[in-house]
């Protein structure tokens, strides 16, 4: 059953069109992440789902029911805000029960619900405190408790982790994901952080300039980005996107970086890629290659030896992170990032040999910026 269906939603503020026709469908139990840079319209879309703003056009269905003209409180949703939005003068318990009080839930049922949720979130020691007496992580938990106590069809999260410090953010990320699995809830989660999107989502909608650029599972978004925006936005460090040329090589096709130069690099295309790349034979394309597909020379990618291509390139800079070393190199005149094992010592300013995984190359049309292969 689809928990949420968004069809043809448009919204404008004055002259600016912030949502240009959004279509999304989320199944029950899914964890949808709306991700994009600030100003892409993701928060507006969430507010429209919540009923806090009206769409200019289009329809919203929650749990199979058209809710365009339904008040936020009657949409069977719960929302967690970036600022937590806890009621400052109420205790934690009152914060959690306020919604039930508004819906005239009997006192007994309220107490049971508070008990259940506070134990689930380990906030039972805090029930008598005021929000000002809580730490950031505790406030976040209370805000989630306020949402959980409702047991709604749909949970909406509006950048809930962005006010937390880095360490706590990683912890809460894991907790939210576990929570999702435990209560099998349907979640729509807005963030600008692509790592949050990758780690938590069952499906991701990448948004930019009021449009959904790609709507797919995290693996597809990461490995087969629909266009250059998605390719560059998802992943840290981002995908290398360099100009290249499609040429025939033997009985197949290859992409050449720095065609015509003495240091040109030729990367053979996979059989699957050739289908789309055929139309671009002897033409310029944008080649996308993830940094982790460029590694130290003795790295083997998968079981298939042929996927790994040896190249030699000048090293311009290294960034050791501890777990790995990011290396900035020059291939065919283009700057690319690679990720090598931390115990490899690279001569900055000198040449080094690398292994390139050519199985996951992405090719984009330079005019439309769309994925072609």
């Amino acid at each position, binding site marked *: 059953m689809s928990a949420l269906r968004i069809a043809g939603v448009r919204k404008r503020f004055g002259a600016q069109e912030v949502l240009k026709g959004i279509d999304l469908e989320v199944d029950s139990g899914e964890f949808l992440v709306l991700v994009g840079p600030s100003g892409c319209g993701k928060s507006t879309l969430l507010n429209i789902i*919540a009923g806090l703003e009206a769409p200019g056009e289009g329809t919203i269905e929650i749990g199979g029911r058209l809710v365009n003209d339904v008040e936020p409180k009657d949409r069977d949703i719960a929302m967690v805000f970036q600022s937590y*939005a806890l009621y400052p003068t*109420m205790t934690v318990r009152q914060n959690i029960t306020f919604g039930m009080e508004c819906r005239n839930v009997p006192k007994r049922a309220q107490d049971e619900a508070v008990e259940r949720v506070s134990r689930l979130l380990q906030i039972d020691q805090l029930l008598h405190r005021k929000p000002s007496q809580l730490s950031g992580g505790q406030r976040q938990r209370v805000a989630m408790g306020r949402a959980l106590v409702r047991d709604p069809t749909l949970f909406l999260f509006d950048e809930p982790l962005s006010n937390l410090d880095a360490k706590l953010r990683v912890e809460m990320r894991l907790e939210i994901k576990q929570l999702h699995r435990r209560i099998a809830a349907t979640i729509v989660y807005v963030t600008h952080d692509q790592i949050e999107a990758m780690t938590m989502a069952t499906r991701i909608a990448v948004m930019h300039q009021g449009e959904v650029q790609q709507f797919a599972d995290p693996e597809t978004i990461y490995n087969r980005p629909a266009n250059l925006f998605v390719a560059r936005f998802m992943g840290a460090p981002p995908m290398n996107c360099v100009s290249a040329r499609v040429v025939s090589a033997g009985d197949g096709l290859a992409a050449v970086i720095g065609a015509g130069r003495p240091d040109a690099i030729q990367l053979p295309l996979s059989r699957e890629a050739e289908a789309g790349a055929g139309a671009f034979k002897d033409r310029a394309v944008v080649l996308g290659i993830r940094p982790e597909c460029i590694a130290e020379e003795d790295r083997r990618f998968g079981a298939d030896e042929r996927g790994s291509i040896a190249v030699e390139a000048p090293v311009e800079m290294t960034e050791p992170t501890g777990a790995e070393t990011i290396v900035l190199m020059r291939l065919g005149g283009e700057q690319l990032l690679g990720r090598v094992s931390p115990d490899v010592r690279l001569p900055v300013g000198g040449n080094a040999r690398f292994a390139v995984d050519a199985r996951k190359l992405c090719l984009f049309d330079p005019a439309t910026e769309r994925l072609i292969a």
Partner: protein
Amino acid sequence: MAEAIRRQAPLSRWVIYAVLVAFAAFYLVPLIVTVLNSVRTEQDIGSTSVVGWPRELALSNFGKAWGTYCIAQRCEGISPFMWNSILMVVPATIISTLIGALNGYSIALWRFRGDNWVFGIITLGVFLPEQMKLVPWTLVLRDLGLSNTITALVFIHVIQGISFTTLFCRNYYVAIPPDLLKAAKIDGAGYFRIFWRIVLPLSPPILIVTVIWQFTHIWNEFLYGVTFTTGAQQPVTAALIALSVSVAEAPQYGVQSAAVLIAALPTLLVYLFGGKYFLRGLTAGAVK
């Protein structure tokens, strides 16, 4: 370096203190004269002048001023007029503050088309002089049949006060994060429940400021009091004038001074007890 400053400091500091003390004394002279006269006998004042130290402490002036002194042929002192003022100031302050809070809440947190215009027009009232409104109010009170009643003054002060109270409350409420309202809407709270359960509990600082402002303003107001009420209906500020002009015999400065001090007492008390909130509330805008 630090020592040099310390050694230099005394002279300039004494000059500053001297100037401040001089100004303070200058401003306090009328108050001091009034206080001194309030405890002097008529003979004492009559035989010397209105400026002088009391020869003996005469506290009877306060009793006379409160209960037996004759104002406009009534010998009940200022107590009935104090009562009039209280009957006027308490409802007017409470009602205008509540309306201001509700207005400010609506304008700051429930954005609607033209809300800034509404706010602008309401606050325009802050800048309109009282005299300008005398004639319109006379007509309104006549048509409502409220001429020469305390109710009329309550009515006027509520309406006049809305400009200030709305301004104060709106500027305080704009600092309330909009997410709080969104959360409450999703929780199922409506306009009045959000006001009552979320916004009002956040409001004591600004409500104290507004109440102090309205109380002192309405209590001290004179023009409307003297224009729209006569005789037994007058608030104390208006009655004090009658007290000074109605006496045929020698002016009784001692009793009059005592009456003035009694009339000023409520606002003084309000300031003493609420002053620190007043200063704090005017500077604080954040609800954190």
